């Protein structure tokens, strides 16, 4: 690991100020950043330790939603009574991720900022436009079983690894950030980026911006909430495909559908036209199949990951069936 300067921030203001140094990075749980520093993919000159800042609460909001501090560990969030009761798909997504040890350390903000698990990104001997812009994409034409089928570019076909963010996206989460220019709130849908020709930029955070909290609106009323993750082994593996769904049924007809997908794209994927296609339909296999047609109209496999197109279709169908059954 390369050397760096370490400083523990006493306040958010201190932390943001310390990020003015070139090559500075925030560190909280560290479970992804330290791993990447060990393999020389991340090379910060300075680590600004924000792990003792007071962003550790899950607070009820006046509107009926919740505000989740950026430093709430994944395990605590999954176990929080309010999350278990009102946002079960989020608890399920968190519990489907990583291991008990990692969830105890990984934070809410850090989970959003996880970097891809693309093998070419991790291996400094191989080309990767995300790690080394302009060097090419090893996964295109290479081994790409875990890679994107939607929203990819000729520069990058990496996927975002988070489960948590997929559920939060379907729940219309917003991200509270503070930076040198002040505070702002970003819809989670606008937080992560598609790769385009700048795959080295994962998010729309400005330099020095610090995530302080994630806001969830009130839970969707009477909705059946489901998170399903399909992976290569039963536990402790990243998603090949995951689906988060909140379905509201009124008089036998789908009144509202919120769907988000993991493992398919460079960011947690949401397509409102898929949701619109379901509204007004009775829950049925043909309706679910039409939704999958819409979702996958522009899907493109790269060889090894071709199976994800059918897997996404089948997983969506299974999740919609389950969510329709769970809707009250």
């Amino acid at each position, binding site marked *: *690991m390369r*050397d*760096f*300067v*370490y400083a*523990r921030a006493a306040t958010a203001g201190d932390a943001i100020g310390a990020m003015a140094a070139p090559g500075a990075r925030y*560190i909280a749980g*560290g*479970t992804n950043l*330290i*791993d990447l520093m*060990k393999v020389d993919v991340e090379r910060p000159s300075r*680590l600004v*330790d924000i*792990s003792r800042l007071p962003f550790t609460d899950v607070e009820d909001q006046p509107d009926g939603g919740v505000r989740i501090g950026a430093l709430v560990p994944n*395990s605590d969030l*999954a*176990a929080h009574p309010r999350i*278990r*009761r009102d946002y*079960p798909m989020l*608890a*399920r997504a968190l*519990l*489907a991720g*990583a*291991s*008990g*040890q*990692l969830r*105890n*350390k990984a934070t809410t903000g850090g989970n959003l900022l996880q970097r891809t698990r693309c093998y070419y990104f991790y291996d400094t001997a191989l080309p990767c436009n995300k790690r080394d812009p302009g060097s090419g994409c090893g996964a295109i034409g290479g081994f790409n079983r875990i890679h994107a089928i939607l929203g990819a570019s000729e520069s990058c076909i990496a996927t975002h690894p988070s489960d948590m963010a997929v559920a939060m996206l379907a729940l219309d989460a917003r991200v509270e950030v503070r930076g040198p220019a002040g505070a702002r709130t970003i819809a989670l849908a606008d937080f992560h980026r598609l790769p385009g020709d700048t795959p080295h930029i994962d998010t729309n955070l400005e330099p020095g911006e610090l995530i302080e909290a994630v806001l969830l609106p009130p839970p969707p009323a009477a909705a059946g909430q489901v998170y399903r993750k399909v992976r290569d082994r*039963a*536990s*402790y593996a990243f998603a090949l495909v995951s689906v988060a769904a909140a379905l509201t049924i009124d008089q036998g007809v789908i009144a509202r559908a919120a769907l988000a997908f993991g493992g398919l794209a460079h960011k947690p994927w949401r397509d409102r036209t898929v949701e619109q296609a379901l509204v007004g339909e009775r829950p049925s296999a043909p309706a679910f199949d039409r939704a999958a047609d819409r979702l996958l109209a522009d899907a493109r496999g790269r060889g090894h990951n071709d199976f994800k197109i059918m897997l996404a279709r089948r997983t969506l169908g299974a999740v919609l069936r389950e969510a329709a059954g769970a809707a009250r």
Partner: protein
Amino acid sequence: MLTITVNGIERRLETLDVRTSLLDLLREHVGLTGSKKGCDHGQCGACTVLVNGRRINACLTLAIMHDGDEIVTIEGIGTPDRLHPMQQAFLRHDGYQCGYCTPGQICSAIGMLDEIAKGWPSHASRDLQTVLLDDAEISERMSGNLCRCSAYPNIVDAIREVAEPVSKAEAA
């Protein structure tokens, strides 16, 4: 400077390379080699220790971030003449073969039972509100600890025995 409590003993380290992981601090600076370095990337769990009572991977955290924290390693769990019940259960059920992953398994199992005592659900929980401890729950909650000798069935037996002393006694 770093002040850290390891197995109840306060340690002060005047000079420390900022890159030192908590695992390397324990093994190379404090001299406690019970915590094992398997993958050094948070994938195998051999380095699992308890920090302020919570199980974490000691390899994926920087020592310098733990100023003021209380660490418990396998050396603080029990001693050869005063074994922790979890250590006794691993012996009784043959919960290992080579033993390399065992310190991490035991620290993880103790941390995991505390999580169950707090009512935390897992991916294997059918109901997020009610935690029932069965073999599927134990396997899921211990998935961050790999055993290349594949002693998993015996590890599950050992943990179940410690988790359910009352029901075990009733069954006997």
